[in-house]
């Protein structure tokens, strides 16, 4: 696999940093890939626009910043406006259809508009599952990590008593796209 870049954009508290961490951990620990993840931090974490860039590759990652983004998932308008600049022409792009109403600057993307947050609240009752839902969406659309590896890893990682809901979160993610 050549260098593949993923960007997750949201507002603080939506759980994308966890999604990014899970993705790189699965890629590295389960599949022996190389990975680098750069989340935004401190003042910008709670409530403000936030992003996490993930770079995956079979080779050691040389340049540590995302510059040609292959996949962009964004759940809010402000981060969409701020962080779409380095997204490639032919990228896979997923946006929350309710929370990103203005899709200015669209390129020749494979675009998915889904009511992500709404569905998570409705079907899982808590937006903390956004992280696992986003992970499942990324897995399905990019196939960058193996599905079974993801399920295995999330089962192990899930805090006691949440395994079933996290499995439901994976299913929801896959059904949404």
């Amino acid at each position, binding site marked *: 696999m050549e260098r593949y870049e993923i960007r997750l954009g949201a507002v603080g508290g939506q759980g994308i940093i966890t999604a990014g961490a899970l993705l*790189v951990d699965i890629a*590295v620990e*389960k599949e022996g890939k*190389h990975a680098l993840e*750069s989340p935004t*931090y401190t003042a910008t974490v709670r409530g403000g626009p936030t992003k996490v860039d993930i770079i995956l590759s079979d080779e*050691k990652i*040389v*340049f540590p910043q995302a*510059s040609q983004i292959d996949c962009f998932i964004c759940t809010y308008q402000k981060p969409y406006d701020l962080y779409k600049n380095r997204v490639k022409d032919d990228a896979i792009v997923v946006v929350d259809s309710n929370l990103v109403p203005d899709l200015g600057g669209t390129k020749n993307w494979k675009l998915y508009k889904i009511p992500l947050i709404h569905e998570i609240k409705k079907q899982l009752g808590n937006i903390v599952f956004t992280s696992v839902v986003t992970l499942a969406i990324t897995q399905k659309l990019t196939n960058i990590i193996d599905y079974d590896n993801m399920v295995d890893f999330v089962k192990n990682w899930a805090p006691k008593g949440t395994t079933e809901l996290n499995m439901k979160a994976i299913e929801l993610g896959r059904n949404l796209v």
Partner: protein
Amino acid sequence: MSKRKVFQGNIIVAKAAIAAGCDFFAGYPITPSSEVSQHLSKEFPKMGRDFIQMEDEISALGACIGASLSGKKVLTATSGPGFSLMQEHLGLAVMAEIPLVIVNVMRGGPSTGIPTKPSQADMMQTRWGTHGDHPIIVLYPAFADEIFSETVRAFNLSEKFWNPVILLLDEVIAKAHEDIEIPEKKDINIYTEKVNVIKDLNIYDRNIGENPPRVDFFKGYPIHIDGLEHDSHGWPTSDPATADKMQHLRMQKIYHFQDEIIKFNEYHMEDAEIMVFAFGVSARAALSAVREARDEGIKVGLFQPLTIWPFPKKALQERFRKVKKVLTVEMNMGQIKYEIERVSSDDVMKKTLLRANGIPFTPKEIVNSIKEFTK
């Protein structure tokens, strides 16, 4: 299953410090280095090692010096504004010849600067920050595995040469989470100076160029350590001949052993006609750029110093016998470029790529600069 795991750069520093036998940390919170102290505040007590958060960076380094003299291997971590405050005690550590390691995760400056954005603008401050002539060792890793190995090396060098060692890191690398295979204990080479029982006060007595022995408090004979210029007993003096000898003792212990201290990486330099000189995140961008330019048939290589100070003068002068073009890439308004000018003759063409706005150079920008340089 891979042996590699993902850790943040700052956490790799903390893990390497633990592996190197560091058993005392004093610090003050500052972005973007705080994870080093957070991690050690959690891990050190489990091992019975000491952690304290002080009232500022001046006191943090003061506490480190006190602990180092009490037999501990010490670490502090900071960023530009905190590093500025540390200069006073850095000078005392150099003067009294005290081993310690300072991590400086650089941010934009001057003053409070841009706390959450990278910069490479403390290059000269690490060399000349504290007042007076002084020897210093500065290491600068770029990749996750280098963060680990250079942190361990920083402790080893500080122990061996009885001198502070500064580890520079770029914000983008310190804050990024990257995969690394943490070496096993048996594969980590740790240098620890054995402190013998001290029999007299003549603790600084040695010949110029000699590697000093480490002395500590509470080792059987009550010694004196001073920030004033001192004689071989550590006692204050303003005698010109003694001062002259002590100045040379301190400077020479680093320069005499510079071949041992200086480390660098070279990439694609075998037949290079253009050399890119870059460190930290700039070196990582430059390596991508060099490979891209090579694909287009340009004979270009990268020289990445892991030791910034002492400056790799000899190695560079050897390269400049063949390579007649050097492109210096640094995230500042021009600092190391003066060192390149100093160590190269006029027949070497020099070009720079400089920027200090918090945005690292991309490989593409460096490729473009290399291409222009071929003309």
